């Protein structure tokens, strides 16, 4: 049986995490079909068909799918899901919202947020904010699985030529209406996929002081993250939050500034390749996961850091 991956997109482009999920799905079974549910999303269908790991693109095109509503997506998935052994999508807010609704209606106990495919029915997943890893085997005949995108490489996007098959839409719900989405536009790399992330915590003391972080981020072409404490204190908006209930990031370099390192924050960043902690409290738990710790007042250290970066001849982008 083939596996079915549900694509996330904005009717113009595929969202990057779908490419990570494609890699994971292809490790479960190479006969990988992608379901694209959208409105006037032919460009998305084409780009998905060019992903070499994708064997077939199923495209549902209807105006009711202009905005993503889990109830409408679920109905569309159920209409076409019966031929598949696995239904898969990314474990970001898109997939977390959608997959359990699908799984419940198929009477499948979902496996959430896997970080490794051990076999088609056995997976590794973090529990307790990543403080334990569970090897789990699904005994349901068919599986619903969500993928932690940062644990899998993004799939290649060129060279493939999968068939695109147009299929039927399902009924629309009358009980849920999309009102609006406030997307924060930024020229910076996306937090979830950036090579470098610099995050600020409560130690920044105010929203204005985040400028110290922004200046370094500009220099390094880094994404900006934050601890929940900083978000709760109103220093920065929620989409920057890194942690158990925020985003999970795995950059090459993670710089934690004025962040003490609560368990919930560590859950979102401790798989980063290189971790730097700058904190004036030498006992802060963040130092226990840092490759390089600097015990210093961030208000002195950050301007100095920028100065030292300016002295370098080249900086990797």
């Amino acid at each position: 049986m083939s596996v079915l991956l549900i694509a996330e997109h904005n009717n113009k482009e595929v969202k990057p995490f779908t490419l990570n999920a494609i890699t994971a799905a292809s490790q479960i079974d190479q006969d990988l079909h992608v379901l694209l549910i959208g409105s006037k999303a032919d460009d998305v269908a084409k780009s998905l068909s060019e992903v070499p790991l994708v064997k077939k693109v199923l495209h549902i095109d209807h105006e009711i799918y202009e905005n993503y509503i889990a109830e409408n997506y679920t109905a569309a998935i159920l209409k076409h899901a019966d031929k598949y052994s696995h239904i898969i999508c990314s474990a970001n807010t898109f997939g977390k919202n959608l997959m359990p609704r699908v799984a419940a209606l198929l009477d499948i106990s979902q496996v959430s947020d896997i970080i490794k495919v051990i076999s088609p029915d056995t997976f590794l997943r973090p529990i307790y904010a990543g403080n334990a890893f569970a090897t789990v085997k699904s005994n349901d005949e068919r599986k619903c699985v969500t993928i932690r995108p940062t644990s899998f490489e993004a799939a290649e996007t060129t060279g493939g030529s999968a068939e695109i098959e147009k299929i039927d839409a399902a009924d629309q719900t009358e009980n849920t209406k999309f009102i609006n989405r406030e997307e924060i536009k930024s020229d910076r790399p996306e937090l979830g996929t950036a090579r470098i992330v610099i995050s600020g915590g409560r130690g920044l003391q105010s929203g204005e002081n985040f400028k110290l972080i922004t200046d370094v981020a500009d220099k390094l072409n880094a994404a900006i993250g934050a601890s929940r404490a900083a978000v709760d204190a109103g220093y920065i908006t929620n989409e920057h939050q890194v942690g158990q209930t925020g985003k999970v990031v795995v950059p090459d370099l993670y710089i934690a500034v004025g962040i003490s390192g609560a368990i919930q924050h560590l859950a979102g960043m401790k798989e980063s390749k290189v971790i730097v902690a700058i904190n004036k409290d030498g006992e802060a738990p963040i130092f226990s996961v840092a490759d390089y710790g600097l015990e210093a007042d961030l208000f002195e250290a950050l301007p100095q850091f920028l100065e030292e970066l300016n002295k370098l001849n080249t900086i990797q982008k």
Partner: protein
Amino acid sequence: MKILVAVKRVIDYNVQIRVKEDGSGVVTDNVKMSTNPPDDNAIEEAVKIKEAGKATEIIAVTVGEEKAQETVRKALAVGADRGIHVKVDGTIEPLAVSKILKKIVEKENPDLVFMGKQAIDDDCNQTGQMLAAHLNWPQATFASKIEVNDKSLQVTREVDEGLETIEVNTPAIVTCDLRLNEPRYASLPNIMKAKKKPIEQINASDLGVDTNPRIEHIKIEEPPKRKAGIKVASVEELVQKLKNEAKVI
């Protein structure tokens, strides 16, 4: 309007988890337990809606072993009117919990069901959406703001790109984000009063729901440890290390 709030008892969020040596799970003996944090937000929101005169009754429900009742008692102390404890021993998966909650919803006929968006123990993030599916109700997940209208809710949701607002007709399921509100502490008089509020006990087996796990936990292990890092003495040294040793800038 009647609001049902589902709460779960979990290891307290401040406890450092220890994995059992035999790989069978994590240590829970003599470990502090609490209400799952976003479930506290769910209760708080229900209480605020009732205080605003828009709800008449709040029922707190939990599914779990004998001691899970503590979380219902806590909900009663912050403002829920009565409680339901569905008793079940051993591991229970979100799919089974959602089926049990469906039975409770059919019995109580609430207009709204609130719960936390995710439990901090198994980190599944499934139960609310699954309950919505079983009931064929709309779902508003990861809510950071709720506006109650006559026959609908306007809910602001925290999504990867920022904030999204949807309108759902009631009855509906809302799963709550930590930023929805600031949960209050129970006052001592209210804790005393809560002891007199009724908690109905129901055995899961009497509800006719199959609670057998479908997912086998083969092994629970500690995540790989990071190798110990070093402390650098100056910003200059830090930049040199990042450039020449780690080669990341």
